Structures are given as structure tokens and as C-alpha cells.
């Protein structure tokens, strides 16, 4: 509440890069009187309004829903994708988790398949192309049988749901020491593999998606588990085992 909210003073070191060709650099900003109730993005909004009035370019960053579901936001805060609070997107991170007078480093997702567009904005279209390779069930509108014609075991439906909650934010890639997109890709493969509807295309899907992931230039997975630790939706590592299983089967 506003009474208890004593303003905080912070030093931000922010990655600024004018465009894909620019080399980019870290720039330091002071922000004062930050309310602990602000979200991290609101803190940046306030700084940006100041920058605009000073005639500067505001810091570009991606965001939309601001409630942790669209997957659009994302920055590496003090070396951790989405910041240190577990299972939280950047937009859901609040300033009360920072100390007064803290120095906060803010960087974009770093991965070759996610080129920087500007400042903290990166191009994640590689994820869309991985889905295009096979992350779907082919069923044209109007051709579906009655929804109750295929029962699905509750445990399978629940496990499929757990995998399906991936918001496609890309934090897994940002955190992985190998820059691997395995967790994202595995989440979709697992979601569809666990459902009866996903069986006909199961093998071809796994193969095509993994190959697309490699073609995009993501690194390989060496099972370091950093991805799942920063994943705002806690997508579990066993999805990667599932992906490997499906992929090996398909490659036989």
C-alpha cells in the first residue's frame, strides 16, 4: 500500500542497441523513488516516460498482457532470465523483491536464432517456424468427430496440459548454456504425444520439429536443467526425455 511504500533508488545497467546492425552497449540509468508495488515493466515505463521527455529514445522492450500468459515479455535480469523469482515472467516480477540502492543489469535474450531487433526486443520467429514444422494436429475446421468420441485418461489429459502451458517466451533458450530450444520444442511434442488425437502424426512431428530446431541454429541439449529452472510455467525436464524418445523412435 502506498503508505508503507517508501521509494527505492536504483541503478540500472541496460543493454541499448539501435538495431540489428548496431553493436550495442550497456548504458547506466538512475531511477529514483521507485514504488515497491510497481512491476518491473512499470518501473521501466516510468523511466521511459522520462527518456521521451528528455528527447531520448525510450528503452524498447516487448510486452503485452502483463499478466504472465502471453509470453511476450522477457529480459535477463542480473544474469537470470525473467529475474531470480522462480516461476515468474518479467511482467509479474515486482520491485519489492529488490533492495534499495541495488544495481540491476538488464539484457536481452542472447541467442543467435533470436537476433536483437532493438534494445531488449528480440526476434523469436524461430519458435513459430518450429511449430510450423509439425506442432499441430491436422484437422480442418468442420471435420472433427464429436468431442466425446475419444475419451482421454485424466492423467494423460493433465500431463498434456502441464506441457501445453508453455507460453513460448524463450527464457529456456536464454538460460540454457548451450542456447538450446529443447524445452520449448519438447513441451509441444509432449503435449501432442500424450493425447490420442496426436498419435497419427506423432513420429513425423517429433522428427520434423527437432530437425527444424537444429536448422534454426539452436544449441544441443546436454541436460543441464537451467531451462526448467527459469521457465515461468515450470515445464518439466521429462518433456525433453519424451522428445528424445519420440525422435529416436522416428529416426529408426
Amino acid at each position, binding site marked *: 500500500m502506498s503508505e508503507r511504500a517508501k521509494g527505492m533508488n536504483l541503478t540500472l545497467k541496460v543493454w541499448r542497441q539501435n538495431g540489428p546492425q548496431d553493436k550495442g552497449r550497456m548504458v547506466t540509468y538512475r531511477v529514483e523513488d521507485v514504488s515497491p508495488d510497481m512491476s518491473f515493466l512499470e518501473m521501466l515505463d516510468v523511466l521511459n516516460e522520462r527518456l521521451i521527455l528528455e528527447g531520448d529514445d525510450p528503452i524498447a522492450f516487448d510486452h503485452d498482457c502483463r499478466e504472465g500468459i502471453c509470453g511476450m515479455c522477457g529480459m535477463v535480469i542480473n544474469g537470470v532470465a525473467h529475474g531470480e523469482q522462480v516461476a515468474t515472467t518479467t511482467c509479474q516480477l515486482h520491485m519489492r523483491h529488490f533492495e534499495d540502492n541495488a544495481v540491476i543489469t538488464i539484457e536481452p535474450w542472447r541467442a543467435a536464432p533470436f537476433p536483437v531487433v532493438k534494445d531488449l526486443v528480440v526476434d523469436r520467429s524461430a519458435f513459430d517456424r518450429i511449430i510450423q514444422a509439425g506442432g*499441430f494436429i491436422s484437422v480442418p475446421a468442420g471435420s472433427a468427430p464429436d468431442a466425446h468420441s475419444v475419451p482421454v485418461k485424466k492423467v494423460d489429459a493433465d500431463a498434456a496440459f502441464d506441457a*501445453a502451458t508453455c507460453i513460448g517466451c524463450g527464457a529456456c533458450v536464454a538460460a540454457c548454456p548451450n542456447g538450446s530450444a529443447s524445452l520449448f520444442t519438447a513441451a509441444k511434442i509432449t503435449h501432442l504425444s500424450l*493425447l490420442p488425437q496426436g498419435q497419427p502424426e506423432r513420429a513425423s512431428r517429433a522428427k520434423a520439429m527437432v530437425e527444424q530446431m537444429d536448422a534454426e541454429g539452436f544449441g544441443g541439449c546436454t541436460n543441464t536443467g537451467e531451462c526448467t529452472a527459469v521457465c515461468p510455467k515450470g515445464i518439466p525436464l521429462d518433456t525433453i526425455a519424451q522428445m528424445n524418445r519420440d525422435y529416436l523412435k522416428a529416426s529408426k
Partner: protein
Amino acid sequence: MNELYTEGEPIRDAKAPEGPIEDRWEKRKFGAKLVNPANKRKLHVIVVGTGLAGGSAAATLGELGYNVTSFCYQDSPRRAHSIAAQGGINAAKNYRGDGDSIYRLFYDTVKGGDFRARESNVYRLAQVSVNIIDQAVAQGVPFAREYGGLLDTRSFGGAQVSRTFYARGQTGQQLLLGAYQALERQIAAGTVKMNTRHEMLELIVSDGRARGVIVRDMVTGEIERHTADAVVLATGGYGNVFFLSTNAKGCNTTAIWRAHRRGAMFANPCYTQIHPTCIPVSGDYQSKLTLMSESLRNDGRVWVPVKAGDTRPASEIPEEERDYYLERIYPAFGNLVPRDIASRAAKNVCDEGRGVGPGGLGVYLDFADAISRLGRDAVEKKYGNLFEMYERITGEDPYTQPMRIYPAVHYTMGGLWVDYDLQSTIPGLFVIGEANFSDHGANRLGASALMQGLADGYFVLPTTIGDYLANGPYGEVDEEAVAEAEIAVRNKIEKLLSVNGTRTADSYHRELGRIMWDYCGMERTEESLRKALERIPELREEFWRNVKVSGQAEELNQALERAGRVADFFDLAELMCIDALHRTESCGGHFRAESQDADGEALRDDENFAYVAAWEYGEQGPILHKEALDYEYVKMSQRSYK
């Protein structure tokens, strides 16, 4: 009043087929001309928006073989605002055998909409709802299931039957991912060309028909022309005119407002839905409001202190000094009264100075009773993730102190006017999803927006647009019309960049939002609306004189994007207030304080207002066209929740 608008010809025909209501859609489908499959590839359709409506439409048109170009302002079609919907999606499957039917869903929707929706449209919506669930399940949408392996449903928003399908608290996400995946499949197949980070800024109207759009590539700033045989707008709602709402930050009115400026009528702009259970505002910097699922009201009790100005913490306020006002005023429904009633009651107690939390804008939603009755574990099982979300945002623990909630703008029932075919008053311009004035009348039932978006996109539009296209071809696009639209866009951008004033676009947006919330929000009066209609033009004038937009046009420039949207919100806000002022009755999401019964309940005026108010843009002010609403099947009656 009359100085604000003029009245034009009524709309006589919304093109719904005649005959028994249950046969009308069949009849329309049969009557629709078909496009020769070989020709479909040559027919080009633009779909703006990739939410449930636009995503499903583009995918389906692609499957049918049309040549589709799709746009969204996000970096991926998967991020459209539909992703945030939590509660669920209605469908008249009657899997429970609890007496649901297409007719009952139709009936509930017409009644819930306070008799301001078209019967034919609503009936079709209820019919098609059944196919949506089939389609989603076949796509792999992981709806909640029972142990027997069949789909689970729940009753939602006070419905007496259990017809809401859900996927935990992420129904919108799962449905949208289903549509998104279908869309990506078509992109891979080459039938749909996707343009992400592209914002539509103008509609191209050539020879009286919608033939394309002008978009800005938000990365390079390039202004692009795209022409086609038909244009579909699926750009969502305009709740962000209030600045603070539960909508995603980027939601805007630009696409539909531009179309309105070019001749598409805007229907019922003043119908706004306010959701009672949102997390209250905590400071001036607040950028958006977060919705908490309505289901919380099943077990939480709403109260405020009896005394005004009581600043004691909740735990120190004894039982007898608490006012459980919903239970007191509405003993039959108690905490479960519909959204608009709960919202207004909260506003009233806060206006009396009894609100809690910062600025006195909040009421308690208390789980202490539920915790002692059911045990903490049971409460955690049911609401654990919501409690967590609340704690994350407020830093307060709802297990030990009551939650604070406050109403917030959530959904807009108004939108571009469309006929039964979802075609606007500009031929060739189709509008689907929340962007049209839709099938919800003056108030939308919970879990019905997802249903409508998908019904439009998967099933209705693909049929009706075929009829329009089959009647073509419509000739070459007039180059001059294209150039003119492009110049309009360039001029506006240049203007915004050249003002170089002293205030940010956001600060204007915040002020506009405040005006709208205070004067055209939960409760509207002639006086408040007139005040708004004074303030809005003043503020708009200042905006165009004093806004500051830094950076260039030819780059990713988020300051410019925002300023452009705010500019359109100003114009829309004005129309909303005029619409609200002219409709002197209360209905659904529109509450005019002058029109209430002795108990303070909304009082409809069916005699004078049983019509859709479709506004045409006019240089001398808006022109009102009335589309009369007839009720053949559901008898008009007053709502009562006492």
C-alpha cells in the same frame, strides 16, 4: 442533445433469413453461393488480428484454399489478447444431461444481454457452439476431464446448467494455441502469409468496397500497401480507452476506428462490461489491471467497514462493524449476483467513503469463513493458483488477510456494426470477434466471448465470405484510393512526430482514461457525460498541440505506436459518451443513474430503446441509424436478482 448528433435512416434489413429460428443458419448456408475450388487460390483475403476470431478465420480460409494474408502487432500470432481468457467457453453440448440445449443457451444469452441482441445471431451462435468443442478437442486442446475420460464442465457466471468447458484457469490460452497451431500449419502449407509486428493503420476503400489495408512494419517503420478481394477485421475490443483495464497493453481501437472513419458503422459503443473481481490499483504508475477469476465469489465474502473512513486493518475490525453488503442487499444471490450488479455495489460503498486500501478504492473479499469451514487445504486446492497470483502482485497473503478487489473494465460489447453475414456497412469488410458489436447485446455472459470469437472464425465467416467472393470479381483496386489511404497514414505519423511538446502520449492516455472511468464508467449520468464531452475535446486539442513523441518514423518506435493509438482513443471516447448520453435507459453494461427502479436496479426502456444504435461517421458529428430489435422467441422481461 441534438447538437451532438443527427439521426439518419433506420437500418431495415440485417439480412437474417426468414423462417423458424432453428432453420435460419441452414438456410443461409444453403443459399450462399460457392466459390469454384479452382478459383479460391486466386482470391485474396486479408485478415487483421490473430486472436481466437482472426486466428481461426485465417486458418480456416487457408484450409479452404483461399490466398490469405494475416497481420498482428505482436511478435507472434500466438500472443493475441485472447490468450489471457481464464474462465472457460460455453457450449450447448448438454453432456451433463442437466437440461441444457441449444435453445436454452440461446435463451440465456438473449436474456443475459438484456434484450439488446439479435435473436437470429444468438441462435446461430448457440448452434455452432457445439462444433467448436469438437473442433478444439480434435486439435488437441487439453480441456479438463473427468476420471472416466470424458470432458468436465462447470457452471459459470450464475448459469443454472453446467455448460462451461475449461482448461484449468487457462482456457483462452489453450484455445488460442489450438487456433494458432492450425494457423501455423497453413503458413507452412503456403496458403497463409503471416506478417507479425505489423500494425494496420488504415483501410483501403475502392469503389465503395473494402479492398485492402495500409500497415506499418513496426520493426522498420516502413508503410506497406496490401490489397485484396476482401478484408476481415478481428482486432479485438477497445476497453483500453479507459487506460486501465484487464486488456493487454497493446489492445487498441485503431483498426476498427479507421474503418469507421471510412464508412463502417460503429454499433453500441457505450456498452462496456466491468468485471467486479480485479486487483485494485496500487499507484499512479499502474499500467494495467489484473482479473481474478469470478469463481472466487463462490467462497469469498465481500465486505467493507460499516463506518466511513475506517482505516484499521481488516483483522482489527470486529464482526459487527463489517458490512457484508451484497448479502445484505441481495439475500437470494448474495455474493453471486451478476457482474454489473456486484461492480456497481462496490462502487457505491466506495463512494460512501467505506472503501479499503490505497485511495479507498477497494472492497474486501474474505476467505476466513471458507478457511475455517473447509480447511486451508481445501481452499488451497480450489484457489491456490489465484491466491498465489494475488500475492505475487500485491505482496499480501490472502490466507491471513482478506483480499482487496475492485471492479475494472473488462470487455466491450460494442464494435463495428455487422449484418447476419458479419459484413459491415462497407461491402467486403467483415468484422469478427470482440471487434464487432457481436451477439452479446448490452451485456456478455461469462465464457461467451471465446465461443463467439471461434464461432465467427471457424464456422460463420468462412461460409459467408465465400458468398461475397463468389459474387465477384470486383475489378481492379483504384490506385488513387490506395495512395490516398497511404498519405493519410504518413501525414498522421509525421504530425505526431512533429508536435514535439512537453507531455508523453501515456500521460494523455492516463488522463483520458480517468475521464472515461469517472464520467462514462460504471454509472453514467447526463451531467457526467456532458462533462466528459467537454473535457475530451479539450484534452484532444491539447494532445495534438503538446504531445511529445521521440525517435523516428523509420525504426521500431514504441512511443510513436502508443501515440497513434491514443489519438484514435480520443475520437472513440467521444462517440462512446455520445452514445451513452443518447441512451437514457439503463441496460446491461450501461447504467444510467437516471433510469433505475425504487431499489436502485437498472431500468430498461424497451419502448424507446429496443434498438441497436449504429453510428455513422460524419464530418458534422455522428449520424445515428437505428436497427430495431424484435423478439419473437424470448419474451422481454426485467432482470431481478433480489
